[in-house]
């Protein structure tokens, strides 16, 4: 059994648990077709046979998800051995986890950065981006005034108007940062295509992380204002 495709060393070395042939690193053994255990440290992009690029055709990803679901879902293994049932359970859960992580752009870049250890789970910098400091300061003051006015039962219309404006302003900023994020996505994808070295990759990822943090900060602002206005 030989494969002409270039595979990672780890995947190539793995022998099929059933026929002992070189399994080929896919979901099923290339020789006997039996489902294979997951290799450690799996990459969700690779699970779908995709490069680590951030611009993904979501319709195509969904189609791959459905194709793999037909093959890997536990429904297919009801009559298989307990060992194979467990492999199918692991692999189909990995499929669903991978699809959940990649289907939306923000979750996708978060996954990439977490995997490459550029980002830590559950940590987003809650520092205001320097260029927004002044506006954020004003916004927070207005929010405080609104809360106070609510407590005092004072007239809210002027404050509401001011906050509404601020909300619109930050909503626009959110759209800008989203556009910026897409640009950084493209740059990253070029880096992947070019097979760039680690230094270049890390430079790009640091940039991705910075834009992502800024976006999450602005999105939280927009959300908080919306909540205060509704309440």
């Amino acid at each position: 059994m030989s494969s002409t495709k270039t595979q990672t060393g780890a995947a190539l070395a793995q022998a099929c648990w059933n026929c002992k042939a070189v399994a080929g690193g896919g979901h099923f053994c290339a020789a006997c077709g039996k489902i294979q255990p997951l290799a450690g440290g799996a990459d969700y992009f690779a699970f779908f046979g995709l490069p680590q690029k951030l611009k993904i055709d979501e319709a195509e990803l969904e189609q791959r998800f459905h194709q793999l679901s037909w093959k890997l879902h536990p429904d297919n293994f009801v009559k298989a051995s307990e060992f194979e049932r467990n492999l199918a359970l692991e692999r189909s859960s990995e499929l669903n986890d991978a699809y959940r992580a990649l289907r939306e752009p923000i979750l996708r870049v978060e996954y990439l950065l977490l995997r490459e250890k550029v980002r830590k789970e559950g940590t987003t910098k809650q520092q205001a981006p320097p260029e927004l400091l002044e506006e954020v300061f004003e916004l927070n003051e207005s929010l405080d005034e609104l809360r106070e006015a609510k407590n005092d039962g004072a007239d809210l219309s002027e404050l509401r108007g001011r906050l509404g404006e601020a909300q619109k302003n930050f909503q626009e900023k959110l759209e800008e940062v989203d556009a910026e994020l897409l640009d950084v996505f493209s740059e990253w994808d070029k880096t992947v295509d070019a097979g760039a070295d680690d230094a270049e990759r890390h430079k790009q990822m640091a940039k991705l992380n910075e834009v992502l943090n800024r976006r999450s900060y602005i999105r939280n602002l927009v959300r908080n204002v919306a909540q205060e206005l509704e309440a």
Partner: protein
Amino acid sequence: MGKTVGIDLGTTFSLIAFVDPSTGEPRCIPGPYGETLCPSVVSLDANGTIVAGEPARRRLLTQSNRTIYSVKRLMGRGVDDVRDELKIFPFRIDDKSRGVIRVKLGDKYFTPPEISAFILRELKSWAEDFFKDTVDRAVITVPAYFNDAQRQATKDAGRLAGLEVLRLVNEPTAAALAYGLHKQRRGRVAVYDFGGGTFDISILKLISTTEGDIYQVLATNGDTHLGGDDIDNALSAMARAEIEKKYRVDFEKHPETVQELRKTLIHTKHKLSSGERATIRFVLPDDRIYTREIRRGEFEEMIAPIIARTMAPVKMALADAKMQPSEMDEVVLVGGSTRIPLVRKTVGDYFGRAPHSELNPDEVVALGAAVQADILESGVKNMLLLDVTPLSLGIETMGGVVAKLIPRNSTIPASAQELFTTGVDNQTGIDIHILQGERELAADCRSLARFQLKVPPGPAGLARVEVKFLIDANGILQVAARDLRTGEQSTLEVQPSYGLTDTEMERMLEESIEFAEQDFEQRQVIEARNEADAILRATEKALSGVHAEGLSREERAAIDRSVAALRETVSGTNYKLVRTRIDELNQATMNLAEMTMNKVLQAAVGGKRIEEL
């Protein structure tokens, strides 16, 4: 290997269905009364025998303290969860039950899975009588919004009833499957499932692929304690208040009257689904009569708050699916409570389209379960269900805050890994508390299980244990831990917060085998009796025919003796003796059978069943 079936284990009624190989269509199996609906009621006889279904329902009126209904409300719950319901439902619960609830029937205690198992066993016997074959595997449906403990309890019930549970399927998803099969639907479908005790909403996408149709659930929400029961209780509360005030009846002293009143009011509720008004007429314990007319408008005013409670989950499910009500291509109604005109109107108005209800809303879930059972059993796959977990899964972290690991509405199977280490030197265990729910604080979420990871003593932070949380295709959690330094898989003693422990399960399985033996005996008696009746009828018929004249005096006397002997034993419970007497009569009538051209007789004495002709 026996047959595989689909079962809808409902709050009020349960059904069992299979896919008819001759038509490829699912259908429900009727019970001895010809009804496909089996009341989810269980009763314990004075002599310790369990009855389930219709006979048990009749006992609700006469032996209410030995009979239980709506046990589904107690599945996978603890005593503290159900305090409010105890005010409304006549459950007699062991107040000291820790973890799993224990319910008293007569003088014995049972857990909810055991009681549900009696209902499953009853349904299983319907199917076994129907197939004349054993039934040992099943797909059982559960409300989509059931949590891990409620699902595990349902699976335990299946096992106690002698069924291998191939899969738990969410009720609205099963309904969508039955509907999809029925009409070859495509697109976005909202399934509004308002049953006897539970409410579910599921938003699905039906996709055609080259391999077949995929039913992908995008989002689900619901309330596992909201259903037709609540409507019955609202009507009861109204009538009780009026009766107490006007007739000074003390319901505390008349538990049977409460049940009888409830039954009368359920009937009233049904009448108000088709008529504009209904009259309640109820005989009180002292023979006075409470009579009252109720208009549909008044009824609707009374139940509007209950129906309004279904709309919050509907909105949340749509928001999670990132969809607008108007974007649905179909809206499907499931569950008996969707027969209520106000429910249909509320749902229709919200989605801006007339909802579908062509299939019998009582049967559609069981039919879908049968389809899924057939898919799993036959391996012929042209349909695939991709369901989701209804609630987020998390673990308790510092300060009682929940860290979410698997978000709600994740396609299942789903998993998450988490790395744990020690906080102080020479710590030998790490406590882990698993929770389900959407709230931030552990105290506000549902506790699923607690366990302790054992680690070898060492400096703080040295231990590295990876715990894998995996929700399987049934929506049930599995936990595995691996020590990253040794690569060893640790064994976990997971103590379910509201489930049966392995030891309890073992004991119950042993007991359930005793019940199974009892059942087997009863079945044998019934079958022998039926056969005896058939042969007695056939013999009588043959004896009155012309061919009987050809019998010798001795032959005739032998037949008469055998008939008398069989008649004597047939009403008893010694089925072995009945079988011997049947054989004797068969011997005695051999000559008569040969002489008689009557096919029915020949078939009957030949041991064949009449219906096989």
